[in-house]
C-alpha cells in the first residue's frame, strides 16, 4: 500500500473543528491527471471518518520533489515492481543541458540485478521512465528524479 503521505503528495492536514478538516495536496507534475482522483479519495475517506466538511486545497509551492517520497513509500514502490527514484538533481541556477542519457544506478525491481538499461525517459505516466533489465530481460518503470 502506497499512501499519499508516503508519496509526499499530502502536504498538510489541519483539523479545524470537530467535523471540519482542511487537507493540502500538491501535484507531482503540472498536468497530473490523478489530482481529481486523489481529491475524491481524500473526501470519501475523511467523510467516512466523520468529517462532514472536507476541504482539499492545491499547494503549488514548494514544488513536489521525489525526495519527499518516504522510505516506506520507496519500499512500497519496489514491492510493486517500480524502481524508486535516486536523489533529485538541483534545480537552482542555470539548468545544464544533458546530451547523454541520464546515468542512474538503477537495479531491477524483479531480480535486483544492477545490469539495467534505459529504454525511454518517458513512461506510462509523466513521473516514470522505462527501463529494461538485461539479466532477467523484464521491462520495468523507474520513478524519475525531479
Amino acid at each position: 500500500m502506497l499512501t499519499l503521505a508516503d508519496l509526499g503528495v499530502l502536504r498538510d492536514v489541519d483539523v479545524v473543528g470537530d467535523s471540519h478538516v482542511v487537507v493540502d495536496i500538491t501535484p507531482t507534475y503540472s498536468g497530473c491527471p490523478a489530482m481529481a482522483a486523489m481529491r475524491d479519495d481524500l473526501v470519501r475517506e475523511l467523510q467516512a471518518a466523520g468529517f462532514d466538511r472536507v476541504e482539499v486545497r492545491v499547494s503549488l509551492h514548494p514544488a513536489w520533489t521525489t525526495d519527499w517520497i518516504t522510505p516506506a513509500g520507496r519500499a512500497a514502490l519496489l514491492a510493486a515492481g517500480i524502481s524508486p527514484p535516486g536523489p533529485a538533481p538541483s534545480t537552482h541556477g542555470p539548468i545544464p543541458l544533458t546530451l547523454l542519457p541520464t546515468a542512474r544506478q538503477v537495479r531491477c525491481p524483479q531480480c535486483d540485478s544492477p545490469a539495467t538499461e534505459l529504454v525511454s525517459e518517458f513512461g506510462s505516466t509523466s513521473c516514470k521512465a522505462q527501463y529494461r533489465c538485461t539479466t532477467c530481460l523484464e521491462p520495468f518503470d523507474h520513478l524519475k528524479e525531479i
Partner: protein
Amino acid sequence: MPDHVHTSAEDEHDSAYAGLLVNDAHWAFGTDFEDPLAGVDTTIPEGIDAPTLAAYALMLGDDSLVMSHRIAEWTSNAPDLEDDIALSNIALDLLGQSRLLLARAAKADDSVVPALPEGSPAPPEDALAFFREAHEFRNVRFAEVVNGDFAEATVRVLLFSVWRLAVWERLRASTDHVLSAVAVKGVKELTYHRDYAARWFVTLAQGTEESRSRLLAALDELWPLWPELFDTHPVEAAAAASGVGVDPATVREAAEAVLDQVLTAADVPRPEVARRSGVLGRTGRDGMHGEALSRMLAEMQSVARAHPRGQW
C-alpha cells in the same frame, strides 16, 4: 486470485468501473477540480498591475496550450511507441502548465474571460481555452505551425523548450507567487523536454543521410520564427519592469548558448534563413496568427462549443 485485487464493498473506489455504477456527475470541462489554484495565495503583489499580470499569464499559457495541442497530434502517430509516449507526456506537461497559467490570468483579471452561455459549467481556464477566437490568442507563431515529420517535431520541441526554459529559469523569481510556483515546477518538466529533443537532434543529425537531410530541412523551416520568441512585447516589458515577468530579449544570449551546444554536438551549422516578418509589424503576441491556428482551434474547440453546457 492475487491478493491485491479487492472485492469488498468498501474498496469499490479501487475499481476503475466503480464510477459507472453511481451517479457520479462530472463536468465535461476540466477534471472536476473547480479551481486548479484552490488554496493558492492569488493575491496580487503590491505595485503589480492586474491587467498586465493577466495579459502576461495569458501569453505564457497560450504558448504552451497551442504547443501542447500540436504535440498531442502526434499521439498514435509517432515512429515508435516510446516516442509516442514521450511526446504525449510532453504535451500533457505543457497542458498542465497552461491550465495553471490561464487560471492565473482569470484570477488576476476576470475581464479577460469570455462570456459563456448561461448554465455553462466551464471553469475560467476552459472558457479561455475553448471560447476565444484566434485573434484573441497571444501565443508566439512558432507554437502554431502545422506539424511536419518526426525531425520537425524534434526541432520544434528543442527550440521551444530551449527558449521556454531560459525564460522560466528567471520566472522562478517572479514577484507573483503563482507564476513563481508554476515556473519552479515547469523548469523541472522543461528540462526533460529539452534533453529529450536535444538527444534526438544529435541522433538524427549524426544518423543516416536521410535523417540528417530531414533534420536540416526542418531547422530551416522553423528558423524564421525563432527570432520572434525573443521580441519584447509591451506587455512583457511592463511585466518585467514590475518584477512579475521576464523580458525574453534578456535571455536570448543564454538560450542561443544552449542551442549552440546542441548544434555543435550535432555538427549542424546555424541556418542562414531570414526571420519571418510580422503583418504590419504585428506578430503572435499581438494576436496576429496564421491560418494554421484557426484550423487548429476549429478542431480543438469544436466539442466544447457544440456543448457549452456539457456534463458527463
